[in-house]
């Protein structure tokens, strides 16, 4: 662990520009990341399948394109953002709201270690023994947005942590990107609200990349692409069933009603597609594309 003081040369420049930068930063892992181009991905702890999916997609694609992903190591969207940024050897920064000896939530201690193993970086403004406390989490959000070029809000309830981060980002003059959510879903209320108020609506990672290319920011690509199409070659016989499964959840019964194929054949196809990681079985006994 290293302690960086505000007066130190290595203190991230980006943080000096925000309104109340932390006096001290406790850092573990790869410190170089703090000065690189990064995007914060934040959102609800209680994420829906849609939110999880979006977080996964944006996180893996943005990190693949060379962005460092910043998030808060909370459960839900945060965890997914961290996990999938590392999948393709991308980099990630986690900002804690407590000291290093009190990683919160406890179940993410494994993720904490995984980030360090993957050459990521963990920072906090609190000394190692600081316990978790309610007030610290909104405070650390200013570091999350402060370290990044922009903040991607995946889904957020009214007044939730993600919403606070977005608000701080606007105050700090950062770019705010929002993924549109269903209007009847509470989890997406604040995301849609921000879009109404003028935040950037994004539907794919390329939108964000294009935005920064226009701004003239250079990003180094991280080439390591794996295509789902290739996998499908071995599973050609299941193509018709795969085509039926889309972004909206569908159950085996519905597939049966549409295709009229024997249920054994359908369950075989679903099992094979799931094993190959092309589709996913979600609560409610339905399937969506992965």
């Amino acid at each position, binding site marked *: 662990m290293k302690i960086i003081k505000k007066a130190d040369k290595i203190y991230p420049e980006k943080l000096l520009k925000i309104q109340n930068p932390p006096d001290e930063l406790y850092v573990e892992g790869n410190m170089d990341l703090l000065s690189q181009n990064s995007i914060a991905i934040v959102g609800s702890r209680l994420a829906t399948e849609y939110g999880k999916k979006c977080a996964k997609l944006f996180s893996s694609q943005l990190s693949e394109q060379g962005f460092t992903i910043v998030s808060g190591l909370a*459960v839900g969207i945060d*965890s997914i953002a961290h996990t999938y940024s590392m999948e393709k050897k991308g980099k990630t920064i986690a900002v804690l709201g407590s000291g290093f000896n009190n990683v919160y939530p406890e179940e993410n201690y494994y993720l904490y270690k995984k980030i360090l193993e993957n050459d990521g970086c963990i920072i906090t403004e609190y000394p190692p023994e600081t316990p978790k406390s309610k007030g610290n989490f909104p405070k650390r959000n200013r570091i999350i947005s402060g370290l990044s070029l922009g903040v991607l809000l995946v889904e957020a309830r009214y007044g939730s942590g993600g919403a606070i981060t977005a608000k701080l980002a606007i105050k700090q003059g950062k770019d705010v990107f929002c993924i549109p959510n269903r209007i009847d879903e509470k989890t997406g209320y604040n995301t849609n609200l921000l879009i109404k108020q003028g935040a950037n609506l994004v539907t794919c990672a390329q939108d964000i990349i294009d935005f920064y290319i226009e701004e003239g920011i250079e990003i180094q690509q991280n080439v390591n692409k794996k295509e789902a199409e290739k996998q499908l070659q071995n599973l050609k016989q299941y193509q018709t069933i795969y085509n039926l499964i889309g972004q909206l959840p569908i159950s085996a019964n519905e597939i049966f009603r549409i295709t009229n194929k024997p249920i054994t054949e359908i369950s*075989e196809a679903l099992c*094979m597609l799931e*094993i*190959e990681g092309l589709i996913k*079985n979600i609560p409610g*006994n339905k399937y969506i594309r992965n």
Partner: protein
Amino acid sequence: MIAKRIPSILPDLSFEEALEITKIHSIAGTLKQDVPIIISRPFRSPHHTISATSLAGGGRIPKPGEISLAHYGVLFLDELPEFNQHTLEVLRGPLEDGLVTISRINGTLTYPCNFMFVASMNPCPCGYYGSQEKECSCSMQAITKYMGKISGPLLDRIDIQIEVTPVKYKKLENDKAEETSEQIKQRVNKARQIQRDRYKEEKIYSNSNLTPNLIEKYCKLNKESKSILEIAFNKLGLSARAYGRILKVARTIADLEGSEQIQKAHITEAIGYRNLDKKYWKN
């Protein structure tokens, strides 16, 4: 509702099985005067306030518990997470061995408990997690806590895990002819007969009694199925216990269809029955 109807499709008892069941119920003192021998499979569904002792058996001179009274029949635990966790863990050994050994100061007794374990539960405290109709109002922590009451080792011993969605009113009204319990029972009896014939020399009655050695002998897979199982194993992170159990279930599905060999479809179906833990107990 489904669980209550399970006895209606259970296979008929053989004479030896009937004798064993009668003996246990006689020891427990629950045999009625006018019933000399029990000829139907027992169905036990204790309330969730049951203690570990009454489930496994016990007392000064150990009496058989619910698991032994369900011998060759069904033990049904409704609302599984409501049971005391300590009580549930008692099931681990018996589920594996089909025997329970109870030691008390006055003696040590071993009772058989070869039962079919059936349990039901909601996905979360409010019951709507994953529902398309109504939004779940539980916090993620509450859901994790609720699910956490069922331990991994116990879950691992459940061969078939299925998620059912609520039945819509229209369907309840449906008068389309569907397979009746009577017809299903005939299929089950046929499969049982196949198994009995196959295991004549092994002194077991059904697929569920297969030991690891016997699994190797009777659950042979063709190359394709083997590779599927291998991929599933690596990708889904199944345990060694799950391996044997998937094979047994696949063997049973094949028997129900009257197929001598375990086909690819049988193996994938069996794997598909073990996906609940992936969905609900892991991220």
